[in-house]
């Protein structure tokens, strides 16, 4: 019985005007997004290669000047533009994308100037995730808002229920058919996009992409189902299709516009963190304190003589300064991570926000990617330091007074650049993505179940006449 009803519902959807318009709209937007991605990715890669080339040139020059020079000078590692950005850009343009480090410390991060144009109002890239979050959610609502109230108005609902069809079956068929119709359109759009990216893209596609596309499709069907359920809820909560439409639109505005856009406000008011002025003040105070208690002569400098006794005092002072600053800054960074994650969790109230977070996990980008690179960089920094210390230990002409900021009291021998360990960003593994994704999935499934159950209860009590 379910299959008969489902078939009828699917045919009803396929022949409808809204299906044709939605299909045209989605395929066009997917295609526009792919073309735009291909162009901007090529430009971003070109800039990235230039920056990376310069990075290696500088590093090579420093290595030939001396191992200490290479170890103590700050370097900036820039994240590569992601090849699967068309799947979900995860707003990477606005996120920090470069990590500043030396052998002694991972200092912080920056948003490489130029990755976003400050004169251009913030905008969403037309990635699959964004198109789905905005348009597919809307279309899913549009397919279901009059599923019950509309049929009541055309009097076919009473007729349907006069057959041996349970209300549960009817509602489930309506939900399933809407999801299937929407997903058929998404599939068409995604295929168009894939063809364009593969044919014109500056890079080949990786094997992992197949899994990512499947993950995306699964997440998109969940979003479609959630909004279809909201549409059904709107439909059974009112007597006329007019009112259901307004209810559905209100849901959509709340989830797609209001909640995601109140994130900054929520973050600052619910989860405040120390201002950057406070952090700077704390660092300055710590420095003052250390300088005051430093033995006299600590700042005396003579780069010509590595064994000048004051170098040991200063190395000790500089090390203490670095550790004090690191403690304050690392705590500040942790508070930023916490604020960001809590805000995300607060906005998970909206299925659209949830889907965007899910999209980020599926495509392995954005904040998750940065967090991983940040953690990996700390591991690498320890290796780099161990490598440097081994070099220094082998040098008899070095006093071995470790100073994280200066190049006077440790080895001055040059080092072959090829031997220096380099930081490589590791790709996001399945586990890296599955962890956060599972959390979002769980919430989403719960929301879907709750909304559908509510719609079911209301439908059972619905007066179909």
């Amino acid at each position, binding site marked *: 019985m379910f299959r008969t009803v489902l078939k009828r519902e699917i045919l009803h959807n396929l022949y409808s*005007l*809204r299906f044709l*318009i939605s299909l045209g*709209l989605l395929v066009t*937007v997917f295609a*526009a997004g792919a073309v*735009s*991605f291909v*162009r*901007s990715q090529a*430009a971003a890669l070109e*800039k990235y290669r230039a*920056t990376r080339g*310069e990075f290696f040139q500088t590093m090579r020059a420093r290595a030939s000047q001396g191992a200490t020079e290479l170890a103590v000078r700050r370097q900036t590692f820039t994240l590569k533009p992601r090849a699967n950005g068309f799947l979900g850009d*995860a707003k990477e343009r*606005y*996120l*920090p994308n470069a990590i500043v480090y030396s052998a002694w410390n991972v200092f912080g*991060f*920056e*948003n490489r100037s*130029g990755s976003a*144009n*400050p*004169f*251009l*109002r*913030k*905008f*969403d*890239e037309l990635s699959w995730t*964004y198109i789905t979050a*905005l348009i597919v959610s*809307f279309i899913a609502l*549009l397919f279901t808002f009059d599923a019950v109230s*509309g049929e009541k108005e055309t009097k076919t609902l009473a007729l349907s229920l006069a057959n041996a069809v349970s209300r549960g079956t009817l509602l489930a068929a309506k939900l399933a058919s809407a999801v299937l119709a929407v997903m058929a359109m998404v599939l068409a759009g995604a295929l168009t996009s894939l063809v364009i990216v593969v044919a014109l893209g500056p890079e080949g596609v990786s094997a992992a992409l197949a899994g990512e596309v499947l993950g995306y499709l699964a997440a998109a069907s969940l979003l479609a189902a959630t909004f279809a359920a909201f549409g059904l809820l709107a439909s059974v909560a009112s007597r*006329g299709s007019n*009112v259901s*439409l*307004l209810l559905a639109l*209100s849901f959509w*505005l709340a989830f797609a*516009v*209001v909640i*995601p*856009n*109140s*994130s*900054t406000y929520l*973050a*600052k008011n619910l989860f405040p*963190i120390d*201002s*950057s002025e406070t952090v700077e003040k704390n660092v300055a105070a710590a420095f003052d304190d250390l300088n005051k208690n430093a033995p006299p002569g600590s700042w*005396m400098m003579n780069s010509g003589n590595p064994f000048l006794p004051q170098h040991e005092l200063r190395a000790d002072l500089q090390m203490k300064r670095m550790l004090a600053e690191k403690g304050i800054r690392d705590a500040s960074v942790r508070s*930023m991570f916490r*604020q*960001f994650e809590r*805000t995300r969790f607060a906005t998970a109230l909206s299925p659209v926000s949830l889907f965007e977070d899910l999209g980020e996990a599926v495509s392995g980008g954005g*904040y998750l990617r940065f967090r991983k690179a940040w953690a990996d960089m700390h591991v690498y920094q320890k290796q780099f330091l161990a490598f440097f210390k081994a070099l220094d230990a082998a040098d008899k002409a070095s006093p071995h007074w470790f100073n994280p900021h200066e190049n006077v009291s440790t080895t001055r021998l040059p080092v072959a650049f090829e031997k220096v360990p380099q930081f490589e960003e590791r790709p996001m593994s399945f586990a890296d993505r599955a962890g956060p994704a599972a959390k979002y999935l769980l919430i989403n499934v719960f929301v879907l179940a709750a909304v559908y159950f509510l719609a079911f209860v209301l439908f059972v009590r619905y007066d179909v006449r």
Partner: protein
Amino acid sequence: MIGTLVKKEFLTNLVAPRFIIVFVLCLVLIPFSVLINISGYRERVAQYRIDRDAAEKAAAEVRVFSAVRPEIVLPPEPLSIFGKGISDQVGHRVPIRLGEKPLLAEGKTAAGDNPFLASFFAVDFVDIAAIVFSLLALLFSYDAFSREKEDGTLKLQLANTLGRSTVLAGKLLGILATLLPVLVFSFALSGLLILFARDLAFAAGDWGRIVLLFAASLVYLAVFVFIGLVVSTRAKSSVTSLVVCLFLWVLLVFIVPAVAANFAESFVGVQSRDNLDRVLRDIDKQREETVSAAFRAQGIPEGWNCWWCSSGEDGYMETYGNPRDGFETFRRRAAISEPIRLDYADRKWAPAKAYADSLARQARAADRLSFASPTGLFRAVAAAVCRTDLAAHERLMDRTRRYRETFVGWLRGKDIFASYRWITSADPATFKTTDELIERRTGGEFKSERDFDAWAAKQPDFRTRWLKLSQVKVPGENPDDYPYLDVSDRPRFEAPPGSLLSGLEPSVVWLGLMLVEAVILFAVGYVGFIRYDVR
């Protein structure tokens, strides 16, 4: 007769559930956006005060002219509560330097203290208005005729001695009578929220601009009413009309602006910032070479030696306790290097400007492309009205560059680069010779540099030399011995007064475009209704 029609339309709309829902939607969304943006504005004001006080303090606590580097802190725009435009992403601090002209403003953006928050977006009144008013207009016009046709009342109406024009006029006026109160209510509510917010003061000109924003919203609303009208006269049933209208809404309000920004970003490239930095570094290197060559030509030694000195970026140099010829060398160095620095700032401007222009070109392209939708036009007009668009920012940055010229003129007027006041607070009349200094510092133990050097050469530890010279503390050899410099006559940056109509010239064209769109749509709708089969 038309009065009766309008009244009928108005009452029909008023009792419809959609009126209540839409009204509630406005009641929730408008205060939501205004309150969030008032809070954002307060935050910017607080930050402005912190930055301004810090800049004032830094500018006042200097002892030499080479340290005088004013920093302009731009006050936040009160109208950004309505439309924030690009105001919260461009920064508000502009340090004035000798070595370069101001290019981009610095300072905290909307993300505040956490750069990760930059990936969250925020809406303002204008965004909400663009979304809700268009929806409102379509919801009340999509079934203007199709519904009445379905109900059979349209036939009935036209069976009377009524011209179709009269019926159409009655419909439109009826819709207007329904929507206008919602619009007025939204603006009044926002106005009240601002009036009753503590520590918020709008000037008369600002209120005037809000009235302009209201006028623009009215035109925007009209465009969408006419879109609904056209669809309504073409569609076979009201359901079709509704579906078409909703898709048009998503297309015009959300998709067209997004596609415009994406295409502008992909097809109108910007220059690489890293590349600009490289070019500027190279010019700086050339400057250093020019300066070195000039030093050599004047016989000034490369390295320098001082008793107490502190130097920093952009030519800051402060020194005390030197012998007379030491001070003289520092003075001659600055007299040569600083005018060269100013010349090179002019050279650095060309590539810097080319970079900023490429950023502006991309942003303008995004705007122009978004004009394919009335929403794009409305946003552009609104940002101009709220003085938060790119043009307003560029005008401010132009002012900061003019201020820099004034500041440089002020320095030149004092002929300060060739003066000792550029590098030290010490009075030239008190300068001593090396021999005098050694005698005073060693408490008379050595009478001349030669005696001292002869003694120092015999010391095994070179630190003894330093310790010997530090035996007697001589006043005036340390910056703390001097008061701060009086630079109260330094030129001040004046933020431009917000006049009612300034900077609105391009928006007149855009508003005109919206009006033309409205007229064309109306004409199409009118013809469509005249030919409409009412049966």
